[in-house]
């Protein structure tokens, strides 16, 4: 892991909304193939932090370096062009298109053909789209209207869209929120497998501690905008401050507990 190139370096990231410090002086880094979880209680600043990384929110201070480039304050579309895939806490897809077309649009953009006005888009990058859908186990749904998918399927579709530009880094804001417990575990296992195979770095926020402790290589704990702990799952689990603020004393997220989890 030490030889893997560093994808993301965050230094002193800060954002406040009218006196409320949503994010305060957050610094961390992420290497290729590493899966990093960002956890913390509601209102800790996870989403704000996330939105600053891909340019949806302009940072109040600090630096974001992606793939060696300073991307602080750049637009989401510019960040995406560098090879960053993004999924949203509440899914954002194109409801009037079919599942395949949803992926095709991302591919069209990836191949820089957005202003091509004469080719036939339904035929464009069809195989590539099917391959991506295959990867996330959605091959049977290609012709279904996206607007009538179940929520868990939408989450998987989002993952396929996020993988369309062959990203080096995936930013996933609560990838399993709103899903059934069984689906959660499956989706995260799938994501982790793809990430390891293609050595994609993954940063994700999550409230499901089973998911976090099963897959994360490292965990960042955010509280009231500040990082209060950072380390491998074992360390974080034992950290008294993290227990007091977030994890609580009663539950032990260890291997035995995980195996007992619904799967």
């Amino acid at each position, binding site marked *: 892991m030490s030889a893997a190139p560093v994808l993301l370096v965050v230094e002193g990231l800060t954002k406040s909304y009218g006196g409320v410090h949503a994010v305060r002086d957050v610094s961390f880094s992420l290497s290729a193939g590493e899966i990093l979880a960002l956890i913390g209680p509601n209102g800790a600043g996870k989403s704000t932090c996330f939105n600053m990384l*891909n340019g949806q929110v302009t940072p109040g201070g600090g630096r974001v370096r992606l793939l060696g480039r300073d991307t602080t304050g750049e637009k989401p579309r510019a960040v995406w062009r560098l090879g960053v895939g993004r999924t949203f806490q509440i899914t954002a897809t194109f409801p*009037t*298109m079919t599942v395949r077309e949803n992926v095709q649009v991302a591919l069209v953009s990836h191949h820089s053909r957005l202003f*091509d006005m004469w080719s*036939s888009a339904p035929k464009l990058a069809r195989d590539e789209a099917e391959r991506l859908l295959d990867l996330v186990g959605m091959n049977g749904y290609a012709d279904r209207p996206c607007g009538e998918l179940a929520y868990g399927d939408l989450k998987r579709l989002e993952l396929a869209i996020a993988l369309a*530009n062959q990203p080096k880094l995936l930013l996933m804001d609560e990838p399993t929120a709103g899903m059934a417990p069984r689906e959660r575990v499956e989706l995260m296992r799938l994501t982790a497998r793809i990430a390891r195979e293609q050595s994609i770095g993954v940063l994700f926020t999550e409230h499901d501690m089973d998911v976090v402790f099963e897959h994360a290589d490292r965990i960042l704990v955010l509280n009231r905008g500040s990082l209060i702990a950072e380390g491998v799952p074992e360390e974080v689990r034992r950290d008294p401050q993290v227990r007091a603020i977030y994890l609580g004393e009663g539950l032990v997220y260890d291997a035995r507990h995980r195996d007992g989890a619904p799967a």
Partner: protein
Amino acid sequence: MAFYVVQFLTGLASAASLFLVASGLSIIFGVTRIVNFAHGAFYMLGAFVAYTLTERLSGALGFWGGILLASLAVAVFGVLIEMILLRRIYRSPELFQLLATFGLTLMIEDLVILIWGPDDLLGRRAPGLRGAVDFFGQQVPSYDLFLIVLSPIVLGILWLLFRRTRWGVLVRAATQDRDMVAALGVNQKWLFTSVFALGVFLAAFGGALRIPRDAANHAMDLSVIVDVFVVVVIGGLGSIIGAFVAAVLVSELNAFGILIFPKISIILVFLVMAVVLIVRPWGLFGKPEAPARKTPGLTVQPWRPLSANERVAMIGVLIVAAALPLFGGTYVLTVASEIAIFVIFAASLHFLMSVGGLASFGHAAYFGLGAYGVAFLAKMAGLPMIVCLLIGPLLGLLGAAVFGFFAVQLSGVYFAMLTLAFAQIVWSIAFQWVSVTGGDNGILGVWPAAWASGAAAFYWLSLGVAVLVVAALRAMTFSPFGYALRATRDSALRSEAIGIDNKRIQWTAFVIAGTAAGIGGALFAFLKGSVFPDNVGISLSVDALVMVLLGGVETISGAIVGAIVYKALNIWLVSHTDLSKLVLGAVIVLIVVAMPKGIVGMIETLQARRGRSTKSAMLASRVESAE
């Protein structure tokens, strides 16, 4: 110096009516989220009812009582409309709400002509305020001074109403989150109705107060609504202070603009609006809106290109259409040419509003610019017809490029209001810049070349161009660009996150749609042999909207079917009744309430339902055989 002061005071006085109407619109929008297009119509009704009452009732009490009574009567009328019509469409997409209230406007226009006749009516002077005050040798009407004092008073009363009463607190709460207010047990229905009543009262009051100054006329509804849209775009929808400041600003710009650019004073207002939109897209006193809660679409049937069979059928239809000159006379062919041109126009708007999700309320601007472009080239430069047809639409392209750049910075109702205001600016230029455009007299004698002057030849030309334009727009709908455009419509958040520059895609679509409309306008100029400011007018813009809506806004071919049905119906109506606006308005309202999917949408739904039932029948039989 005194002259400028007087000019300033005149501006302030005209700001009064504008403020009343704009604040009413803002209050209604704040709570119900409906941009009430019919607000101008209520303003006009206020003026006409006040005229009748002040003529009947005598004395000072009769005059002032008449003004108040008229405003109250119109407010009651507004309440009836709210309960009968608007309550049915509060959850509809914004576009439908705008169109339904526009349909109301059309109906009220004809009703006013039915009741009060077609003439302008000048009311009597206000008792006690007949004279003028001498101001450094310049005369200022005392009624103007009264209006200047009145608007801050109304502003104060509204402020007290919203800050100091329980009702006001509820209204402000509903403006922020109406669902939460409803969840807290407030009767939303009556809150909406009372807010609508207040808004309409303010509009009617603004109209009633105008009669001692200007005659009540039949164009005042549309002219005021455009000014009001400009005011709320500058001031910020939902803000009463914003309405006040912007009303004063716009009125003063008009008052002084006349001194600087006597012919095209409206340019000044446009420039200010453009600057405000760049600096603060949500208006001077407005708040940036959270992205609007997406109204779920009416259907979720994904679009697909024509199948091979459908293509053959399409060619068959075209062959029949091309054979029309064999059995149709000159009149039929002229009507058919006009329909073909409107198919182009409707298809161009469809590209912008159905594919791009940008409902332009001023699409006629680019149609008209194409027509004027041809007229300039043919009359002034004396160029041959083909050259005119090729270059003329470029004026539409140019207009769409300039206005579209600003328009796509906004979305939803702001986009609709802004496009309407732009179209009105083009109209004003066509109307006022007499030396170039001929003003109201238009430009005459734009005749086609000899080879296209026969009815059949011109019909084939129109049909051919229509086929080309529609085919091109359709190809673009299914091109990567079309998909990117639909992506920006479906989810701006997601499209930006996959590298799409939303504004640039939308701007390009705006220019494409404007150019296509310009092509339609260019043909139209040759068909009619003339160009008039009406070719840029609001009613033409709304015609296009109704065509798309009638055919089905969520379908691909709806615009074409809608254009054919609507135009044929329209031509027939105008030749058979004097009350075409009343019928047309009723048709619009009916479509919105009863068949929002449009003709093609209804057919597709029926087909889908039949398809599903045969599929489930097959499934059932298979289950039976398995048993």
